[in-house]
């Protein structure tokens, strides 16, 4: 008997430490269980599919943001990059009649270019990326409005529908793209030496510089990666909406940022996993979906989103402080 209870306590202890290490995952599970009880139509295949597709667009861009964040930066212009290139892609196809095979690579180039602009401004002006991308965000969005000329741009080739609306084996294409992008991102970050340099940059920039890392080049490349990945989001979103509007993509960075922070990507850089990021994305997806099912008014949804972001940041800071405490105890030992 005694032995048995000891084993139970042991298992309980292990589960407790495991849960502590995976707080975001535990939260996700809790939300899933909670909502499947509250809303009977939540845990259906159709709803889950919709939920994941809804969030997959932010999920893809979040991978790009994560590269920048692990290196210690941030990109607040993601949504506006999409606004601009979304309109431009619509114009390319509808007004200029460019074939998909030309328009798509071209828009990827443009997206990467927008990232490069962020990166160059960052290293040349030496201003915090928070401010840089806040500025470029307004600029990109503004140009999006200018070239859009208040139109609803339509008339794309039908083959373009597949990217945002198609399915492969019952799974929406954007979801598959998200998974692929996440896997590639994870591979680069964890297996390649480029990935290690990203962590090094965010972990200790000066040490990285002294170890021979070309800091400036890295910074530009990372913003380019972020821009490139968001150009993929652009293509999927335009295909999904199937009309060029300036509203598409606006504020997308908010979900990306919240997901990253929820998933344990640190604001200060040097930390983060794709698994955590995906858990963060799913938490947001579940919350968004549940609020829609419960027909929460739009404005209340905004309030909830803001609160979740702050909770995520507080969680990040709390974890950092706890680590710092352990460190100080070690040093003063």
């Amino acid at each position, binding site marked *: 008997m005694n032995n048995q209870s000891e084993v139970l306590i042991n298992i309980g202890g292990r589960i407790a430490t495991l849960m502590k290490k995976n707080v975001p995952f535990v939260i996700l599970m809790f939300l899933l269980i909670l909502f499947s009880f509250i809303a009977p139509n939540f845990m259906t295949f159709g709803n889950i599919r919709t939920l994941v597709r809804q969030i997959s667009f932010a999920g893809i861009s979040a991978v790009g943001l994560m590269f920048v964040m692990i290196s210690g930066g941030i990109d607040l212009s993601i949504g506006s990059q999409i606004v601009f290139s979304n309109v431009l892609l619509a114009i390319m196809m509808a007004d200029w009649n460019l074939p998909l095979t030309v328009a798509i690579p071209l828009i990827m180039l443009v997206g990467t270019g927008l990232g490069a602009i962020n990166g160059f401004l960052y290293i040349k002006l030496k201003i915090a990326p928070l401010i840089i991308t806040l500025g470029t965000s307004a600029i990109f969005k503004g140009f999006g409005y200018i070239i859009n000329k208040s139109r609803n741009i339509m008339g794309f080739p039908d083959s373009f529908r597949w990217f945002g609306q198609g399915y492969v084996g019952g799974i929406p294409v954007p979801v598959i793209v998200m998974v692929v992008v996440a896997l590639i991102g994870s591979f680069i970050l964890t*297996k*390649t*030496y*480029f990935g*290690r*340099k990203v*962590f*090094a940059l965010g*972990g*200790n920039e*000066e*040490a*990285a*510089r*002294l*170890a*021979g*890392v*070309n800091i400036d080049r890295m910074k530009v490349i990372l913003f380019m990666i972020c821009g490139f990945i968001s150009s993929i989001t652009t293509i999927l979103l335009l295909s999904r909406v199937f009309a060029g509007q300036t509203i598409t993509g606006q504020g997308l960075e908010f979900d990306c940022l919240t997901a990253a922070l929820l998933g344990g990507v640190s604001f200060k850089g*040097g*930390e983060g996993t794709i698994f955590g990021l995906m858990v963060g994305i799913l938490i947001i997806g579940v919350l968004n979906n549940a609020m829609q099912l419960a027909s929460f008014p739009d404005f209340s949804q905004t309030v909830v989103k803001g609160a979740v972001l702050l909770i995520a940041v507080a969680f990040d800071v709390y974890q950092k402080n706890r*680590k710092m405490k*352990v*460190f100080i105890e*070690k*040093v*003063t*030992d």
Partner: protein
Amino acid sequence: MDAKVVLSLENITKKYPGVVALNNVSIDFFEGEVHALLGENGAGKSTLIKAVAGAIDIDSGTIKINGHAFHKVSPHISRELGIEVIYQEFNLVPTLSVAENIYLCEKSEQSALFSAKEIEKKAAAVLAQFEVNINPRAMVQDLSIADQQIVEIAKAVSKNVKILIMDEPSAPLSVSEVELMFNIIKQLKEKGVTVIYISHRLEEVFRISNRVSVLRDGSYITTVNTSETNRQELINLMVGRELKESYPARKKPHGRIALEVKKLTGNRNRDISFSAYKGEILGIAGLVGAGRTELAQLIFGAVPADRGEIVINGNSARIASPLDAIKHRIGFLTEDRKGQGLFLDMSVKWNIVFPILKKISKYSIVDTKKEDEIAGHYKERINIKTPNLSQQVINLSGGNQQKVVLAKSLAAESDILIFDEPTRGIDVGAKQEIYHLMTELADLGKTILMISSDMEELLGMSDRIIVMCEGELAGEVQKDNFNQHYILDLASGSN
């Protein structure tokens, strides 16, 4: 003696992990005297000031200020009783005016509102005492360093200072500015203020002080009247010890020049020229602020040089960035290992292989087998004590963290290694291990530049020592002529 004791330290002891910073120190300070505190780097001067200022708690002993005895002084009490400290880094707000800085945080007696006019008038009056021309409305960031220091002094005086402690006040000043500061100190002295003056520059001590107290390795040595001593005696008092540690035996250097530095200038250094041989440990001596770390930064490209030449193995090398230096097989073990050497959140092996990632990657994918192999090799070779290679570096002790930094440089197979304070803050056992490793490396034909403030270690380890003073090379000493007194003499700018 009929002088009145204003500050009396009795049996002050302060221990840090592994170090006794102050060991039973007792000193009396008189009213209206300039009392110099002397000692080598790490003798305990800074700890002593911090104890008096209430910045740290002492472990035992009594501090008597104007007859009030304390076991624990808080910054507040220290201020209340008229003690002000001017640290090497000024405590001024650069974007506020002179007057605002002098009367920072002080409420006006006349009005509940802040009045710029009122404090400007008061500040002008305080500054007028010093016969200096500083506009109370000027922004502190627009002032010269010397004027900023005067503002610091004015701030202290405005608070009715009784005891003014100055930590290396002349370090940032030019010769004429030092004169100005001396004048102000004299005026303060006449008003009965006690000035505790900390400086490495012996000639200043002779010019300005009434008495001198010497500290060595945290212990109080003696106090003498300045008029009754001389330079040689003070140096003897500061050094006065035999070599204690044992240093491993060495092979003779190979005789081929590995590194030649010609008229290197920049980063507060001027016209530095020297050479270092293969298999040699070249010590770089100097006081804090002499420019030793700055020289290392120049050689490593961490700060690009304004002019000068670096020659490696007979070929002129263009070193504009750390990457260039690494390509020329130079390794730099920084003094600030946490800030510049390590990725604390990352694992031991991650840190060790970081500089050689390219070498152990195929198609840019890191070969983790090789990573384990290399990291494991250095863990064994230099005895890094860690439960496993995946342990985060943050969890290691200081000595083992230093070994990780060392392993990093070894893995990079550097031929020229710059060690900046390699044994600072690590325990005796780890120190011995580091010494043996350095010896082993030199015997393998590597060139080691060793910067250290620990004279004993420098003399014990080096084949030759170059001495720096205020950004310039003050001299070179061969092993046969190693003499602590002579080196300290060079380092404190005897000419």
